[in-house]
């Protein structure tokens, strides 16, 4: 929220928070290109549950930096490894968050990033294995101050 300095933010107070949060909350239901992202990644195949452990806080006080850790069960050998993992936030203005690409040299299918969440929503991870198998996991994160994509 660099555009608004501290004094302005205080002056606007609650009204400011409402104004910035309201359109985002509406977006969460309307502009959902999450399905499109998932379709593109999976090619229409239905991913199975399991193999993924997705670590996110239940409540994020600040949607601007929400720590996300992911770990996928895999031997990570040349024959069998996790190839790509797509992360989707279904309530953000743009559903895409990141696509992580692993190789057998990664050793472990494990990564941590920090993400922005505009409002309370589901974060979905879909993993594609080297043999084409798909796995998914999702977590709901309650956001008290919206990241607003910024």
């Amino acid at each position, binding site marked *: 929220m660099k555009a608004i300095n501290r004094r302005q933010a205080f002056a606007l107070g609650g009204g400011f928070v409402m104004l910035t949060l309201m359109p985002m909350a509406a977006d969460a239901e309307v502009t959902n290109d999450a399905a499109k992202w998932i379709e593109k990644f999976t090619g229409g195949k239905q991913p199975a549950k399991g193999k993924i452990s997705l670590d996110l806080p239940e409540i994020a006080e600040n949607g601007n930096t929400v720590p996300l850790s992911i770990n996928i069960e895999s031997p*990570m050998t040349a024959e069998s490894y996790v190839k790509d993992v797509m992360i989707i936030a279904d309530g953000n203005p743009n559903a895409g968050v990141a696509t*992580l690409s692993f*190789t057998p040299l990664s*050793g472990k299918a494990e990564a941590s990033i*920090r993400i922005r969440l505009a409002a309370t929503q589901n974060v979905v991870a879909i993993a594609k294995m080297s043999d084409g198998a798909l796995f998914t996991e999702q977590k709901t994160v309650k956001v008290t101050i919206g990241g*607003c994509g*910024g």
Partner: protein
Amino acid sequence: MADKPRIKLPKEAIKGEVIQIKTLVSHVMESGQRKDAQGKTIPRKIINKFACEFNGKPVFSCALEPAISANPYIQFDARVDEAGTFKFSWTDDDGTVIAAEEKISLKA
């Protein structure tokens, strides 16, 4: 211009060991959705790709969207089978590449 990226990894490893690598680069990651005080949209400026390779072989890469926080922090692992050099690169929307490298040796 962005500051030098911060990278944390061990100086040496046992052959076959899986090490953890932590990286952080200073960047605004402007999403292109915010408006300034005049109501004008602030143009998008994000790092859209991060990649790490070891002795020329890809280890880990990551496509980043505007939903990544400012000053992107990325942590991942790598298996070390030989001594060598890790190369890291962050690619900005405007084509700028922030590059860094770190050496690792094998424990005797």
